[in-house]
């Protein structure tokens, strides 16, 4: 009850004050699970994993302090660079592609028409049922000989590659798979589009601006905060891809789809290099933080907040 000294604004009457105090006390009670959870399942493990990353630990013997050796090993490890390359390439292609596709779909769906709810649901569906079953489905669709994708390509005279067993095409196949899940990005964009006041378009139309110009000068700036949000989510998601890589390609062929998350999993649970795995996790964490920071920094240049201009808060 000492902490209530600092609680909230000055009390106006003794009665009011005691209500405030009691409220603050209850605040902590409500918060107890979150604080405990944060310590037990987030903060504690984060610190533990940093400490582990400086050790050699194979689960069977006690951890042995090795300083920066894990990080030095990583730099010298060809497979680490391969994993970094795979994750980077995947992010660089799938995130922008997902943004463009997501926005495109959202624009198409942002209209009054019959059954628009059904359409939205259909596009969102794949993200709801993501999982092993769907990964298996894509394995089958991409089958070199009997997969429907290559069969369809055959109809238009293209001989499809052996997607999943071909070093060059395995990663593109996973990127295509990821596009099927663009529905959540679309819905977030859609919410943004629907927040744009219709009068802006009407005014632009009276000034003679065509649809493309309207899109460029009204739509894009006014949804830039949504784009920003989707970009951050996309980066974080892309760097953590695991199930698809594990189920569809198992990281192959010849490590062509060895994502960082898979590389980490292998070291932790296949080779039981817990210390090294923790070091990889921290490298991933730092990459995510740096990228997010970069996006946040750059946002001043391209994200337009209408609330700021109007002096309202969201």
């Amino acid at each position, binding site marked *: 009850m000492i*902490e209530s000294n600092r*609680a909230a604004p000055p009390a106006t009457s003794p009665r009011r004050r005691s*209500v*405030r105090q009691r*409220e*603050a006390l*209850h*605040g902590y*009670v*409500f918060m107890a*699970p*979150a*604080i*405990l*959870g*944060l310590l037990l399942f*987030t903060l*504690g*493990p984060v610190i533990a*994993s940093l400490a582990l990353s400086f050790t050699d630990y194979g689960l069977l013997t006690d951890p042995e302090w090795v300083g920066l050796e894990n990080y030095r090993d990583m730099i010298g490890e060809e497979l680490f660079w391969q994993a970094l390359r795979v994750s980077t390439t995947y992010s660089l292609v799938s995130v922008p592609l997902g943004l463009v596709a997501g926005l495109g*779909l959202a624009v*198409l769906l942002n209209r009054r028409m019959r059954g628009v*709810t059904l359409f939205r*649901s259909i596009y*969102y*569906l*794949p993200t*709801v*049922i993501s*999982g*092993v*079953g*769907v990964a*298996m489905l894509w394995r*089958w669709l991409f089958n070199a*000989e*009997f997969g429907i994708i290559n*069969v369809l390509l055959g109809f238009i005279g293209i001989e499809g590659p052996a997607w999943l067993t071909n070093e060059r095409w395995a990663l593109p196949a996973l990127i295509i798979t990821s596009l099927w899940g663009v*529905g959540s990005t679309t*819905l*977030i964009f859609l*919410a943004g589009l629907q*927040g744009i*006041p*219709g009068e802006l378009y*009407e005014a632009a139309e009276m000034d003679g601006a065509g649809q493309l110009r309207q899109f460029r000068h009204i739509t894009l700036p006014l949804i830039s905060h949504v784009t920003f*949000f989707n970009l951050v989510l996309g980066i974080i998601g892309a760097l953590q891809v*695991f199930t698809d890589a594990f189920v569809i390609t198992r990281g192959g062929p010849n490590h062509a789809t060895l994502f960082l998350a898979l590389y*980490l999993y292998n070291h*932790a649970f296949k080779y039981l290099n*817990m210390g090294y795995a*923790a070091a*990889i*996790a921290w490298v*991933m*964490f730092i990459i*995510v*933080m740096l990228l*997010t920071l970069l996006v946040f920094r750059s946002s001043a240049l391209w994200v337009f907040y209408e609330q700021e201009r109007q002096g309202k808060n*969201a």
Partner: protein
Amino acid sequence: MSAIATPPATPRRRAALTPRELLVEVLKYTVLLVLTVTWLFPFYWMFTSAIKDDPQVYTIPPVLIPNPAYWNNFADAWGKNNFNLFAVNSVFLYALPATALTVISSALVAYGFARVRWPGRDIMFYICLITIMLPWQVTMVPLFITFKSLGWLNSYLPLVVPNAFGSAFFIFMMRQFFMTIPEELADAARIDGAGEFGIFVRVILPLTVPALAVVALFRFLWAWNDFLGPLIYINEQDLYPLALGINRLRANISATGTNALAYPYLMAVSTIVVSPILLLFFMAQRTFIEGISVTGIKG
């Protein structure tokens, strides 16, 4: 981000369309239609592959409508591979307990963030938000080591117990909902001398049933689809959830040779596992879509 659920699409009414505009409209609808068919096709292919036999699976050009259809593939693939047990594990050992704990804990914490005033609240909320950004890999290794030393491997405890402590995503989501409830309601009850917990249970919770439903839906779904968690913690086949069961079927397809009916069975089981989710989704699509629009949670 503004929390718009399903507002009416901003209409741009025009008196009449010029021929060029009409063309653009027609084009847009065509693109949308083609895309939609493409989007749905994988589902169709999964389903039809499930009711084929091997000759039909390995035919070029492919069989679009299997005739005869082998409906018993569903029962065979499911029954022969112990999927009844996996389904029970998925639902009763994992999804239901995880969902119940998440709903209770996230609601409590979110209410603490949204409507109870206490020092340090906002800082705590930002910390909570930052943890959403934290890659799961960072905590994975220490948590595994901890749960192993507790003797929790080969049980669902590592996947269920943490839910009792709230999850940042759902806390954020619930908070957004709680914020929409007029503060005066709670204040009035407070002045009348009601305790915070009483206000929460009797005044606030009844108003947030839809929000609780969204959280429950998403959490159930995540557990149902979760692959990595069980992969790490569950080794015993009798404890497998559906996801690991499907993954085990994959062994029927290998570089050295593919077992009889490997693909139909795999697709049959996948179809069955996906079906309840499809059903749930179409029954509650409004709830899902509002949830995603409000918070931007990925499915």
